[in-house]
């Protein structure tokens, strides 16, 4: 039992990854593949009038140039969502493989196809493009104004979608005498995922079909999108997903698979590869939405939140991608995180001439959590309360039920997590100690919490399919559509499968890591922190079916009653006396080679999940602010999560470390910048985009509260995205605690800190001496 659920076993792919044996798409590209390289528009908003390809086509090695004027005009949607049977609930189809109407700086307008990389690059430089310039807009609220540039013809005022919710009577509630009003505008930046492996893919035709091998999180969904983009039957497309070097949501979207498949078709089915550079990844893949959030909170002097108004303005960029789903999820956290009897929420998702917002770790929650948790600290400050006390007073109570999802807060998760985090970092003592700092270098402590859930039910379908085969050596081969993307899902699946079937060790499970839509049972992929929770249902169901078949076969071959047999540590065991009567290997061989009744013991099933689960936690941060140098140093950071029962504690901790690292960059250094005059991106590279490095991290401290989740057969719930949600506001609140300066936008980098500290009078202009 040592090698099953709840144990920190070594990852199933650890040695292969360390030795470089795992195959990524680039390791699999056929040697005769053509290089397709994309010409990105050098305008923020324009029409392409003409593209002169003659010089490019004359370059030795350049095979062909395809332009937006030849591209299919059937728009498709790219978001990696399950297909909806309800046409009204489908993603916005606003994308073409190449565009005549340029909607952001970097939009794809032509492809140079060449025998080698250098010729392709030379070809790109030789293209001559003529534009008809259009006015552009980079800011979401400005794009909503009358007379703003129209980015998509169908979309008036550029508002892709808006939604609202309301509880109680806000207008009446705020008339209560003695209420304290706390208002703020909170702003989050456009950031990028920065997974190690850039997106890329290759396509080739075989048997009248197109195969795309791609760095994606969602192979089965990509199949549908590529088919829609090419206008072909879904069965004509085969998607293969090998190992991938991270995704964080960027690859929960059709990126260049449709274009690659189209170019392959145009080249008569020859293999074609598209490989994104880092510069392309930053601006022509997906980014996290910049969301500006306006909150007005009304509190009684005892700290009770009585009324609240929340508005969200999400900058979608040039194409809809995940669109309003992200904003809606962000908005949906407000009624639950701090339940408030009189609450009005409004949210808008708006096209602008910026790179495209998609899914990114947290799906709206890093933005919502930043605003909500800044405002909560501002409330505490206005009332003279401790930031911890105001949260304990107002945060979601035990027993809370969300009517829409049916989610129940079975335990007092938030308060348990905050208590644990406060103890670990010494919150109360430090709050007192740091209040005495008054010099140029001041220390501060802050906390923030976040709301999260698991998967996309009931908004979208949640389903997981699974296939298990009993091998002749008694091991089990397992396949499912919930993809390994570096997070360790395959290891968790091996542990769960071993436990359900009754194998000796997780090492007796061979998880087929590569998804191939021709072979792999249909699944939705890796997103929404769903894999372990959702796959758990189908593993439980399929493992149960496999067990039944094994026991039935063993009963037939041993003459024992089925009801008297069990599978324990890879042996068929007679329950009555615990005697092992045969091993799974012996059974498998006997069954396979039985001349009268040959059996290949397999099981396959689909589980439709009609549950969701809350997954909460918090961050505590300790900072040192060097005022004259305008610098924040993060001294300590602690994350506490309740993600239910841990399947693999070491992997869970690693998952949290990664999220904390992203949150540190989000809070302190990362943002994509654009030239206001042209809309050109300024820092789409890893030198100028300040991804945080481990030199910017203190030791990442983590803890878990393991309240088992009753809806999950394994007691587990979301952990993929939650660790990225509360770090930035915890750092902001620590800076507030240190300096008294409330900074309502991130990143709190030296430039912003300099401006804010100057405004607050803590830094004075340098006069010449």
């Amino acid at each position, binding site marked *: 039992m040592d090698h099953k659920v709840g144990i920190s076993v070594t990852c199933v792919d650890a040695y292969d990854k360390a030795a470089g044996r795992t195959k990524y798409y680039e390791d699999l590209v056929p040697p005769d593949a053509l290089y397709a390289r994309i010409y990105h528009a050098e305008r923020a908003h324009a029409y392409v009038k003409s593209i002169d390809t003659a010089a490019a086509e004359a370059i030795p090695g350049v095979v062909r140039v395809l332009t937006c004027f030849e591209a299919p005009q059937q728009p498709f949607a790219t978001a990696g969502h399950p297909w909806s049977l309800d046409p009204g609930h489908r993603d916005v189809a606003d994308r073409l493989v190449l565009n005549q109407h340029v909607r952001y700086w970097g939009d794809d307008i032509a492809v140079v196809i060449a025998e080698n990389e250098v010729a392709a*690059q030379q070809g790109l430089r030789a293209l001559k493009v003529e534009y008809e310039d259009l006015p552009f807009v980079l800011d979401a609220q400005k794009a909503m104004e009358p007379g703003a540039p129209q980015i998509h013809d169908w979309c008036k005022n550029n508002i892709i979608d808006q939604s609202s919710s309301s509880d109680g009577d806000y207008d009446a509630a705020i008339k209560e005498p003695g209420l304290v009003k706390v208002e703020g505008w909170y702003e989050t930046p456009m950031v990028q995922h920065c997974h190690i492996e850039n997106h890329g893919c290759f396509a080739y035709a075989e048997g009248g079909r197109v195969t795309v091998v791609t760095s994606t999180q969602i192979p089965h969904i990509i199949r549908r999108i590529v088919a829609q983009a090419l206008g072909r039957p879904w069965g004509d497309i085969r998607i293969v997903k090998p190992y991938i070097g991270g995704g964080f949501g960027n690859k929960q979207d059709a990126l260049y698979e449709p274009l690659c498949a189209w170019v392959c078709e145009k080249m008569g089915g020859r293999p074609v590869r598209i490989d994104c550079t880092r510069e392309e990844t930053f601006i022509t893949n997906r980014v996290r939405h910049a969301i500006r959030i306006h909150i007005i909170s009304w509190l009684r002097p005892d700290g009770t939140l009585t009324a609240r108004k929340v508005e969200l303005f999400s900058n979608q960029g040039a194409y809809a991608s995940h669109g309003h789903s992200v904003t809606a999820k962000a908005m949906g956290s407000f009624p639950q995180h701090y339940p408030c009897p009189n609450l009005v929420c409004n949210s808008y998702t708006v096209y602008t001439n910026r790179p495209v917002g998609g899914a990114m770790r947290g799906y709206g929650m890093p933005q919502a959590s930043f605003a909500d948790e800044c405002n909560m600290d501002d409330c505490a400050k206005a009332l003279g309360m401790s930031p911890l006390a105001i949260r304990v007073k107002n945060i979601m109570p035990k027993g809370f039920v969300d009517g829409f999802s049916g989610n129940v807060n079975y335990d007092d998760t938030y308060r348990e997590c905050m208590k644990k985090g406060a103890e670990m970092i010494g919150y109360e003592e430090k709050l007192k100690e740091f209040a005495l700092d008054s010099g140029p270098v001041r220390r501060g402590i802050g906390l923030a919490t976040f709301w999260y859930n698991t998967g996309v039910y009931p908004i979208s379908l949640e389903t997981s399919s699974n296939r298990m085969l009993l091998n002749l050596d008694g091991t089990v081969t397992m396949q499912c559509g919930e993809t390994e993307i570096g997070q360790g899902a395959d290891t968790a699946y091996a542990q769960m499968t071993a436990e359900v079937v009754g194998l000796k060790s997780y090492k007796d499970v061979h998880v087929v890591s590569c998804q191939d839509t021709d072979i792999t049972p249909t699944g939705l992929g890796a997103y929404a922190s769903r894999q372990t929770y959702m796959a758990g249902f189908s593993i439980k169901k399929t493992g149960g079916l496999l067990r039944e078949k094994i026991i039935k076969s063993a009963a037939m071959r041993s003459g024992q009653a089925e009801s008297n047999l069990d599978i324990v540590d890879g042996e068929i065991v007679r329950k009555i006396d615990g005697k092992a009567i045969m091993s799974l290997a012996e059974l498998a061989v006997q069954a396979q080679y039985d001349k009268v009744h040959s059996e290949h013991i397999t099981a396959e099933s689909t589980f439709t999940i009609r549950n969701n689960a809350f997954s909460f936690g918090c961050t505590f941060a300790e900072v040192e602010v060097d005022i004259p*140098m305008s610098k924040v140093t993060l001294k300590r950071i602690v994350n506490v999560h309740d993600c239910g029962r841990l399947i693999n504690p070491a992997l869970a901790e690693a998952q949290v470390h990664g999220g904390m690292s992203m949150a540190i960059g989000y809070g302190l250094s990362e943002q994509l910048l654009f030239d206001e005059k042209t809309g050109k991106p300024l820092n789409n590279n890893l030198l100028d985009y300040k991804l945080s490095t481990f030199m910017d991290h203190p030791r990442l401290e983590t803890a878990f509260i393991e309240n088992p989740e009753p809806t999950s057969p394994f007691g587990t719930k979301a952990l993929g995205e939650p660790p990225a949600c509360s770090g930035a506001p915890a750092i902001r609140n620590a800076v507030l605690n240190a300096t008294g300066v409330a900074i309502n936008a991130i990143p709190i980098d*030296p430039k912003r800190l300099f401006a804010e500290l100057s405004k607050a009078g803590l830094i004075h202009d*340098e006069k*010449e*001496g």
Partner: protein
Amino acid sequence: MYDMKALYEAASVEEAIALRLAHPEAQIIAGGSDVLVQMREGRRAGAELISIYSIDALRGVTLEEDGTLRVGSLTSFSHITRDPLIQKYCPTLGYAVDQVGSPQIRNIGTIGGNTCNGVTSADSASTLFAFEAIIELTGKNGVRRVPIHEFYIKAGTVDIRAGEGEIQTGILIPRESYERTFGHYIKYGMRNAMEIATLGCSVNVRLSEDRQTIERCRIAYGVAGPVPMRCPTAEALAAGQKPTEALFEAFSKAVLKDINPRDSWRASKAFRRHIAVEMARRCLAESVKRAGGETA
């Protein structure tokens, strides 16, 4: 895959000079941490390259007879940092070049490449200015020695005469510049690694025998102007003075008379001026402390 027309490899300084004369348009490449990045960006697409990377004679740190500290142009940053002579005579330089990029970049990048690249943000440059380094160039007419402040002509341009087949062969720090001096370098960046300097400040001082007076002080900046620069006003102000908080304050404000940082999206002029003052103050205070002086 890099778009290069040709690559010529020189095994000796003589070969490098001959190759330069034969291929006047060719770009010299040493460690490649700047040149290859520029080629990848398309800025030098189709370039001819002359690699001098295998000229081992240009590697290492030595002490010449007159006490001049000689750093071979191909010496990598990590070798400079760990070199015993550097650690003994000019640890500020060893520390400054240890602030470059990442361990991998410091292993491949060379001090010659860092200076020949001609950018104001080079981590070695401000310290080399503050120690009055001499750049040694070797060409068809022999050896030419140029003070570093003359070597830097303008942003991205240094005084190397391609027509004479010159390559940079060494960086010399005169004994007078490092003897009995103690210094400190602060690199200001937006993060703590993989960073290009927002501003770099290098200070060194020589105290009087009784350590009561600053005999001599040097201060130089990177990114305070188009090329690295010294601050003569501040240096003159500190010379002969007692190290007091008041002096540090006056010294640090005085740098504003000499520096001229620019406004860019990376950082505003006001921000750079502000941190320049604070960095000067901290660097001087630290240098005095390292020199064994006490601040009144």
